[in-house]
């Protein structure tokens, strides 16, 4: 087994040097990490699993990578090897991203971006890598299904002043402020995305389309009391019946409050706050505005 291991590692190195990532991963996968024939320590097992997962991820192969990351997850909790632990976290985030579990991926990317140490083992953690993780967290959050959970992560990211330096910040700001995104902004955002984030879904929308349509629909629900599906379709840039389908799913999944009148072909958005609370809020706003005026007067010496 020792000789097999050495040969496989050598061959894998060669495949890697030729950037044949999956072949290198397959070569290493043949190593029997659970053999009873010899003693293999957990750190070695963990390092191999993570290495194989990273190789599969170079080819965006989430399925095979996940198989090895799942194996690694039993080993990583006892591992003191910080470099391996970090590599495991990055693999896990990328697998979630590839599997379009965007909100979970965003949280893991964000966690990685907050690493304080700049030196782990003999690995240098440079700012650029952390910035990439932060940017990936923003991208995945924007692509996640619109709703309360996503809004909470958006708020966290928007308030993290590191984000204001990211190239993606303008669209993060608009998404956080629940503004309707227009086509030019969406196209600019699309340029920064990875292929799987623009992949076609069964309903013939891409991942990006769905995220943007849901986001704009939720943004519209903050601006409208009600809207006809014809007009909503025009606003979202999709056929009215598709707008109705997406709206009904979001309402059903409790990611948007509202009701659909199919006879009139109109959607009525419910305001999260009840009328009485709205009345209270309006009065609170009025009192604050009054205070602002009094403060301004005091500042100006009146």
């Amino acid at each position, binding site marked *: 087994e020792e000789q097999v291991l050495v040969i496989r590692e050598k061959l894998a190195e060669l495949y890697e040097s030729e950037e044949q990532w999956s072949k290198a991963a397959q070569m290493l996968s043949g190593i029997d990490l659970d053999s009873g024939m010899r003693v293999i320590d957990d750190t070695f097992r963990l390092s191999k699993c993570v290495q194989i997962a990273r190789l599969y991820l170079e080819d965006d192969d989430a399925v095979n990578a996940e198989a090895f990351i799942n194996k690694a997850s039993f080993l990583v909790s006892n591992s003191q090897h910080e470099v391996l632990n970090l590599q495991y976290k990055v693999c896990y985030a990328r697998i979630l991203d590839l599997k379009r579990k965007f909100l979970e991926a965003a949280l893991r990317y964000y966690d990685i971006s907050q690493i304080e140490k700049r030196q782990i083992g003999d690995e240098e953690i440079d700012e650029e890598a952390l910035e990439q993780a932060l940017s990936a967290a923003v991208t995945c959050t924007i692509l996640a299904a619109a709703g309360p959970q996503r809004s909470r992560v958006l708020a966290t990211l928007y308030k993290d002043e590191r984000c204001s330096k990211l190239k993606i910040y303008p669209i993060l700001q608009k998404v956080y402020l629940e*503004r309707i995104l227009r086509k030019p902004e969406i196209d600019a955002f699309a340029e920064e995305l990875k292929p799987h984030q623009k992949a076609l879904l069964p309903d013939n929308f891409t991942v990006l389309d769905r995220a943007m349509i849901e986001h704009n629909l939720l943004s519209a629900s903050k*601006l409208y009391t009600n809207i006809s599906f014809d*007009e909503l379709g*025009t606003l979202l840039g999709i056929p009215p019946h598709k707008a109705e389908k997406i709206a009904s799913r979001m309402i059903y999944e409790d990611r948007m409050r509202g009701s659909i009148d199919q006879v*009139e072909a*109109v959607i009525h958005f419910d305001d999260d706050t009840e009328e009485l609370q709205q009345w209270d809020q309006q009065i609170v*706003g009025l009192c604050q505005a009054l205070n602002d005026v009094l403060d301004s007067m005091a500042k100006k010496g009146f």
Partner: protein
Amino acid sequence: MDIEQKQSEIIDHFIKEASSASSNASTLASLITEATSHPSLFAFSEILSLPNVLQLEATENSAYLDMLRLFAHGTWSDYKSNASRLPQLVPDQILKLKQLTVLTMADTHKVLPYDQLMQELDVSNVRELEDFLINECMYAGIVRGKLDQLQRCFEVQFAAGRDLRPAQLGNMIHTLSNWLSTSENLLVTIQEKIKWADSMGEIDMKHRKDVEEKVEEVKKSLF
């Protein structure tokens, strides 16, 4: 009031520029054009009240003074009915004047009918009107509200203040004094309600005590 904070620096900038332009009429004219084109400026009375700006009245650039007055108090319709006597507006100015028109309409009503908005803003369809209200008004921060397509109206919850016309001061003071007396009456009413609730509470308490005492007596007499 963040719209006021946002534009106060811009106002100061133009006042400084206008003051240093002294009485050079053409410089002032281009400054007025620049101010009435600025995307984040919706208040012009400070500039309008500068002496050297007012002196434009007697010069061949008096049309720019009229234009500044239009942006301080007028609407898009006012411009159309006086276009021959005013300088040609550039697209940024037209956009701004239409934004200011929405503020003027929100001055008197909280619910603005689409038909009236479309007429006042020269807009031909609902989509165009709503895009204008969304992008150029709500997202610009000058108004907040809700679009109601079924009722074909825009419900205004907040609108930034426009420059005041002199005549407005009177009814503003009138409205404020109404508020004051209404608020005082409200406070008196609330005080009375609290007193009433307290006294009712005491009566309740006394009644409860009487009943408990009676229960005790009955119990004793039973034994």
